[in-house]
């Protein structure tokens, strides 16, 4: 019976495809029109002319620099996550001590601490630490808030390593560190790429922390650039849509190559 088509859900899926794809089409179509053409034809029409002036304008407004800053933030966040999450997840899955169970609960509770809840003291602390208006001041808290979900994803992967493999290692007299590097890391490649992609998304898409913790043009990231562009160029809709398109391109490229890692990792988050 599973092969019989599911018409109700199929219709919903088709409708949802339109809801997702149409705005993205309008975005790209509008971004290659001149402002005059766009307001004359309306957003739902097929473009009659083609121009890349909107994209040039976006880069004239400093988006190149925003890109660079966002890359640095993203790289920093991924590096920290990949450094601290694997040992944590390994200990949670393998150690049987009460303290590690407690640590796991601690991180699960952390899942529900929204950045908004701590943003006011974060501003105070980052100021006090002298990190205000620096990229490092964005990287550190962003990475910290990516930890709970990444731990959840990676422990999910590591749990599927069978005890027999650890037994085989311990027969050989392996230490926990040896088992970690020789067994756990190679077998967790899927989970590791998921948390890398996931934390990269957090770094790339972050908005509130950069909004509050930076100030100068030279430390601006791409999401803030978009927000500013919108407030300043509110009537230039094709220009704004070109900026949004530009901001999405790197993410979509990563998605093309890492779709499986991201989707499968997230699928496990819901629990069964």
């Amino acid at each position, binding site marked *: 019976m*599973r092969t019989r088509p599911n018409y109700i859900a199929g219709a919903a899926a088709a409708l949802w495809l339109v809801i997702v794809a149409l705005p993205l089409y309008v975005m790209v179509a509008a971004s290659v029109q001149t402002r005059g053409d766009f307001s004359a034809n309306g957003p739902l029409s097929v473009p009659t002319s083609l121009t890349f002036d909107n994209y040039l304008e976006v880069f004239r407004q400093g988006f190149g620099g925003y890109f660079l800053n966002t890359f640095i933030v993203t790289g920093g966040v991924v590096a920290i996550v990949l450094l601290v999450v694997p040992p944590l997840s390994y200990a949670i899955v393998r150690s049987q001590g009460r303290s590690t169970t407690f640590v796991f609960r601690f991180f699960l509770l952390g899942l529900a601490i929204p950045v908004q809840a701590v943003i006011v003291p974060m501003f105070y602390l980052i100021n006090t630490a002298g990190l205000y208006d620096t990229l490092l001041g964005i990287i550190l808290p962003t990475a910290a808030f990516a930890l709970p979900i990444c731990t959840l994803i990676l422990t999910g992967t590591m749990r599927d390593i069978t005890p027999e493999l650890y037994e085989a290692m311990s027969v050989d007299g392996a230490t926990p560190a040896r088992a970690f590097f020789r067994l756990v890391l190679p077998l967790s490649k899927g989970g590791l790429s998921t948390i890398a992609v996931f934390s990269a998304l957090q770094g790339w898409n972050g908005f509130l922390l950069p909004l509050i913790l930076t100030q100068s043009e030279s430390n601006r990231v791409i999401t803030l650039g978009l927000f500013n562009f919108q407030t300043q160029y509110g009537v230039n809709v094709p220009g704004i849509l070109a900026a949004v398109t530009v901001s999405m391109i790197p993410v979509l490229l990563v998605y093309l190559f890492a779709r499986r890692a991201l989707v499968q990792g997230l699928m496990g988050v819901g629990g069964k």
Partner: protein
Amino acid sequence: MTTLNPPRSASPEGSTANRPARGGREHKTRPGFLWTLPATVFFSLFAVVPLIAVVLLSFSSWRGIGDPKFVGLENWQELAGDSVMIQSLWLSLLFIVLGVLTQTPISILLGVWAAGEQRNRAVLSAIYFVPLLLSSAAISVLWRALLDPNFGIPGQLSWLFGDGNLFGNQSTAIAVIIFVGMWQFTPFHTLIYQGAAKSVPAVLYQAAEVDGAGRVRAFFSITLPQMRNSIITSVILMVVGGLTTFETVLILTDGGPGTATTITAFYMYEQAFQRFDFGVGAAVALVLVVVATAISLIMVKVSGYDKMRSTMEGL
């Protein structure tokens, strides 16, 4: 579960010859508490220390310069009589309820569909998940432009949108925020349900078929009950997400018209970072913390996350 813990009553010292990997020897290959320290210290520094600081700040007055001054319950008294604060809590509740009601049915339907036999579904679901990748900022800027009163879609479809100024009154402004939230987050919840639907054992469906149950009957009697935990998880994530909606409100409506869409998270931002009243902002934040923590406690309890379950369980 594939990682059953070995029995605690390990064999006595020295008699491990037959079962070399169990008991004392295997214990040596288990990582200790030290392995968790870097992550724990780091997370505490940036999430727990501020969490304590937010409590202290909520009893202080701080205008952004100098040191915070202790003022007792002053901030709390101010909030208790503040009609915008009270309204923001009701608005947050409304956002949460509307978010759950719009996102849950469609993501269950899409998730169950996507979990079926893969033919063209792989390509389609690849497109579905695009909004999941984009930043709230980009999505909000995109929809703000698409729904622009003068140049956007509503002007072209006046039979549907009337005068086209969706941001001009409370009910349409709320509808826009709910719709944009749905556009952004339905893919994520679809994924949760897709995973859940995939892990429903096929034998249950075969048994239902033998009993003569149709697809709709099987959906309500097998699929939905089997996905119970995922539904709970998904709804709780929606509640936390709805509670902390911020970028969408800032970029789409800026809390307006007036204070018509000023939800609690946005009000906190306004108090702290626009009026530079960090004490009051901290008090609003603390309200968010309490609500979010209550939800997270329920999440850990109900969903069984903490029970060390493998993703293969139930198969």
